[in-house]
């Protein structure tokens, strides 16, 4: 079995002997078995792990097999369920198949039949998953508002495809402006809680003194200024998704309280006594390295493990520059600007070479601004902000136009001119020219070679 493939199987049976038997057969076949003694335990386990398939006994106390099967079919249709039971009545078989069972095996089990059925179920699950992935790729991603056909974004879409059928808590890593909230929304909208609320909280934007009340809510009179009851975000997110952005900014005491809510699935409003049940899917995000925060004692390790069941790393825009043209078109369309159709070649070259420290949000701001100032049918280099065009140089008080003045001037022409200007201004002093242009040594000398200006430094030095 491939190490890369998901080979986790849930074995759900109240009979410990049956779990022991299946564990022995399945582990020898190369599967990783998660034994569970009830339907309730199965649903709980799904918040921690996504199996390739589930073996489900029907005759169990409590929630029972058929109710569990129904829940699985409604919320996780992508995961194949093989029903195992000693009850082979036609009525039961029909019920199970109607509730979405992939297959049905009668106990006492035949080892060969079981292994063949499971192999087929796991393969079918993988194929269905792959079909949805391909459909998404052909359809351009399939997650509204998220644009990208680059390899890093395809990897993100593949992960989202896997996550949409799951309730696991997700921790999204990414620099500011990479779209963490968009991804959280995509998870919500494509999952089983899409009909429920999506509640976003930016932990960094709320003063610490108010954050607890924001999350937990409060009762009237619970503190000075609490003139009425307030419903908190945990309660607002019931049956939906709670997105906690900048989770690393939570204070340690609030982290402890959040952990308790996640463990016990209940909470109390500030000043309240009642335990209120909370049923939300938690998605968190941070631009900080949480492992480092744990090491520094600023973030609880036990909370980190609870949050990071699945981690998504959003690429910075500079690592997916091939998506820039599509993003620009999407922003132009979003602004509803019917006058401007696109971006000139020269402007695009500049945009592709810029590093985008502010990521997609910065690109969006730049496009929005450019749409306002552009006077033609295309955004041109002159419509871009200076910091993007490269800082203009002053030579004797005169400003040398830093941008291409027409869409015919390429970035190459422009870069060559800048390099010559900088070298001339500093009389061949390479270090000073590099500082002026704000570029590193390797790039500087690469540009000199590219524009055949290696001789220029000596020329200028000797002409002093």
């Amino acid at each position: 079995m491939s190490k890369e493939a998901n080979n986790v199987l849930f074995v759900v049976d109240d009979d410990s002997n049956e779990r022991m038997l299946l564990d022995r057969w399945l582990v020898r076949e190369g599967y990783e078995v998660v034994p569970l003694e009830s339907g309730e335990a199965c649903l709980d386990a799904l918040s921690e792990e996504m199996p390739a398939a589930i073996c489900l006994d029907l005759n169990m106390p409590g929630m029972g097999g058929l109710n569990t099967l129904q829940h699985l079919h409604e919320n996780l249709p992508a995961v194949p369920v093989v029903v195992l039971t000693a009850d082979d009545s036609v009525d039961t078989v029909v019920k199970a198949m109607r509730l979405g069972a992939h297959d049905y095996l009668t106990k006492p089990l035949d080892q060969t039949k079981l292994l063949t059925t499971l192999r087929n179920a796991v393969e079918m699950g993988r194929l269905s998953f792959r079909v949805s992935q391909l459909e998404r790729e052909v359809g351009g991603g399939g997650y509204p508002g998220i644009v990208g056909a680059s390899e890093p974004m395809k990897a993100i879409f593949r992960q989202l495809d896997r996550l949409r059928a799951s309730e696991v808590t997700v921790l999204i890593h990414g620099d500011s402006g990479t779209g963490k909230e968009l991804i959280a929304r995509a998870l919500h909208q494509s999952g089983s809680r899409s009909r429920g609320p999506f509640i976003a909280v930016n932990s960094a934007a709320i003063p610490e003194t108010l954050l607890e009340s924001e999350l937990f809510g409060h009762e009237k009179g619970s503190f000075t200024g609490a003139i009425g009851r307030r419903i908190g975000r945990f309660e607002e997110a019931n049956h939906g998704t709670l997105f906690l952005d900048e989770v690393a900014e939570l204070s340690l005491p609030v982290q402890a309280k959040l952990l308790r809510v996640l463990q016990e699935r209940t909470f109390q409003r500030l000043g309240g006594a009642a335990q209120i049940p909370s049923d939300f899917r938690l998605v968190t995000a941070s631009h900080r390295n949480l492992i480092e925060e744990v090491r520094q004692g600023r973030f609880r390790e036990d909370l980190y493990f609870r949050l990071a069941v699945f981690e998504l790393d959003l690429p910075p825009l500079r690592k997916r520059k091939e998506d820039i043209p599509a993003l620009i078109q999407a922003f132009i369309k979003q602004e509803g600007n019917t006058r401007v159709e696109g971006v000139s070649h020269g402007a695009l070259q500049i945009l592709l070479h810029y590093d985008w420290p502010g990521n997609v949000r910065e690109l969006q701001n730049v496009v929005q601004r450019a749409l306002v100032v552009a006077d033609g049918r295309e955004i041109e280099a002159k419509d871009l902000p200076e910091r993007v065009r490269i800082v203009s140089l002053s030579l004797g008080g005169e400003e040398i136009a830093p941008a291409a003045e027409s869409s015919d001037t390429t970035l190459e022409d422009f870069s060559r001119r800048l390099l010559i200007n900088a070298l001339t201004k500093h009389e061949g002093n390479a270090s000073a020219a590099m500082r002026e242009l704000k570029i590193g040594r390797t790039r500087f000398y690469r540009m000199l070679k590219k524009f055949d200006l290696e001789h220029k430094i000596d020329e200028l030095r000797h002409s002093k």
Partner: protein
Amino acid sequence: MEDRWRRISPDLLELLPTYLESLRKDSARLVDELNHQNFLKIGYIAHNFRGNGTNFGLPEITQLGHQLELQAKACDLAGSTGTISQIQEFLQGLVPPPAE
């Protein structure tokens, strides 16, 4: 070694002591549930007996389990009492495979 043990795979032979121990505990539980006439719980235990007796070389447990399950469903006190006695006698007379 009895034939019944030769028919099961070495894999499952390893698990047999655990299985037999659990059968004995469950059969004691059956008596307890019978005393309380808790047919629902009797039915669950019987269903489990039915489900894997044969896999561990004990088709008699599968058959008695099925019989008891039907009796429990029908709340048949006399029938259930008889079958539970049969299960206990069978287990008492069972010769486990020699330990290696």
